[in-house]
């Protein structure tokens, strides 16, 4: 337990100490929120879907947690290159505990990042419809963070260096983001697209956030929870397995 805690704490310390990075990672969500939010707002409204800012704010929050948790999972690679990873790998602590400590740390920092962006959306004019549902929104936020930290750890454990990173970015993360329905409603999509979006775990995360924050849901909150829970178990298992196989 102590080992998990100290590794979790390490992730948190590293996060809070990199203020410039925190600030920089607010840039992208801000851009989406302001440019798309206000740029596409009038069209969205004319189509009879209400406020686009209201609609996309949960999506931007989900996006933030996605990127931030996968990146902190992949940060494993920096530890590999700078050598700190081997210090933890030879320690008399089961690798599962080391993986859990790191992944919890990654998920926690991703959640903090998501909350920061939530504050930004509130300033921009986003208003949750029912404050009583905020705990549910937090639960969804946490689930998304855990799912994608697990994925990040699995990827980070399988790569030797950062060379494959653009591949991961362009063929995994961006599709996950764009197919999640963070930016557009999932209703009335062409059949093929609708199938692909229903395979995207983030779609359930964003949908869950929407059901909690703006009382709109495509899949239904119960299905969202169930899918995210299952995917979390699978990806954490995958991450743990890949992590246990690391050789330096």
């Amino acid at each position: 337990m102590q080992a998990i805690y100290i590794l979790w704490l390490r992730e948190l310390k590293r996060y809070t100490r990199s203020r410039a990075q925190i600030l920089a990672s607010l840039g992208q969500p801000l851009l989406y929120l302001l440019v798309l939010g206000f740029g596409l707002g009038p069209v969205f409204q004319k189509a009879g879907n209400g406020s686009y800012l209201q609609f996309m704010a949960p999506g931007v929050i989900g996006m933030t947690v996605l990127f931030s948790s996968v990146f902190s999972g992949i940060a494993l690679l920096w530890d590999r290159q700078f050598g700190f990873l081997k210090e933890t790998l030879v320690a008399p602590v089961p690798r599962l505990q080391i993986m859990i400590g790191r992944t919890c740390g990654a998920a926690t920092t991703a959640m903090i990042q998501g909350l920061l962006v939530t504050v930004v959306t509130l300033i921009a004019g986003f208003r949750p419809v029912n404050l009583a549902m905020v705990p549910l929104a937090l639960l969804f936020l946490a689930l998304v963070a855990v799912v994608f930290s697990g994925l990040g750890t699995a990827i980070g454990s399988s790569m030797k260096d950062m060379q494959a990173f653009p591949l991961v970015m362009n063929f995994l993360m961006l599709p996950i983001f764009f197919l999640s329905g963070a930016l557009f409603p999932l209703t009335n999509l062409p059949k093929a697209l609708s199938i692909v979006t229903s395979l995207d775990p983030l779609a359930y995360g964003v949908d869950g956030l929407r059901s909690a924050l703006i009382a709109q849901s495509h899949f239904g909150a119960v299905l969202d929870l169930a899918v995210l829970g299952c995917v979390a178990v699978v990806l954490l298992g995958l991450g743990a397995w890949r992590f246990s196989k690391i050789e330096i």
Partner: protein
Amino acid sequence: MIRVRNLVKKFGDLTAVSDVSFAVAAGEIFAFLGPNGAGKTTTIKMLTTLMRPSGGAIEIDGLDPEAKQHEVRKRFGIVFQDPSLDQDLTAMENMELHGVLYHVPRKVRRERTERLLKLFELWDRRDAFVKTFSGGMKRRLEIARGFLHTPKILFLDEPTLGLDPQSRNQLWTHVKNVNQTEGTTVFLTTHYMDEADRVAQRIAVIDHGKIVAIGTSAELKAQTQRETLEEAFLALTGTAIRDETAGSADQMRQVARAWGR
């Protein structure tokens, strides 16, 4: 304490370690000498569960590192050749993290951390981030950290690389001390012949992944009919200079440096 039989490690076509056999007794100080790329670090990685051998058998305190990873990890401590500190933490935090991972009780942890940081003259800088340290200071911190817990076996992979003579002296005194008072078995690699001569009870010379000679310093000198260990070493391994190809890790470090990480 350490028993290695016909150990082999291949990376594709390259055989880094080829058919190496040796044994280290409990309480012994044993040195691995060899030119760059001879297979020293690869052997240590296999002994310390960081890498799986391609063939052969290893026993650490009677246990197979492949099958009983966790049990084996409880038995050794290691000072790595290349950096393994967390640069974004302070010296204290690095020590603390290591102490927790190695289950050193809090009180002992505090006490030993203070003693070791003072011994290696880092106490005044204990709350500074490691990334602000000079190369020598980082090296000293790695070594201090290696002594925080008291393992049965201590692996030292070129521990004195980049250390000044004072710190080097401090290190070897401490190693001998731990060896005598705690009975710790020490397995070390080094480039400095005088150190091996001074500290190690037995020496194995390894070249191109094979052990070319093994014995006490006196035995090696007698075998090659040379005056000093350095001459004996050159007689055994030749005078050609070896190049190690830069691994992806090294390339990455360069990129990272360029990006200011």
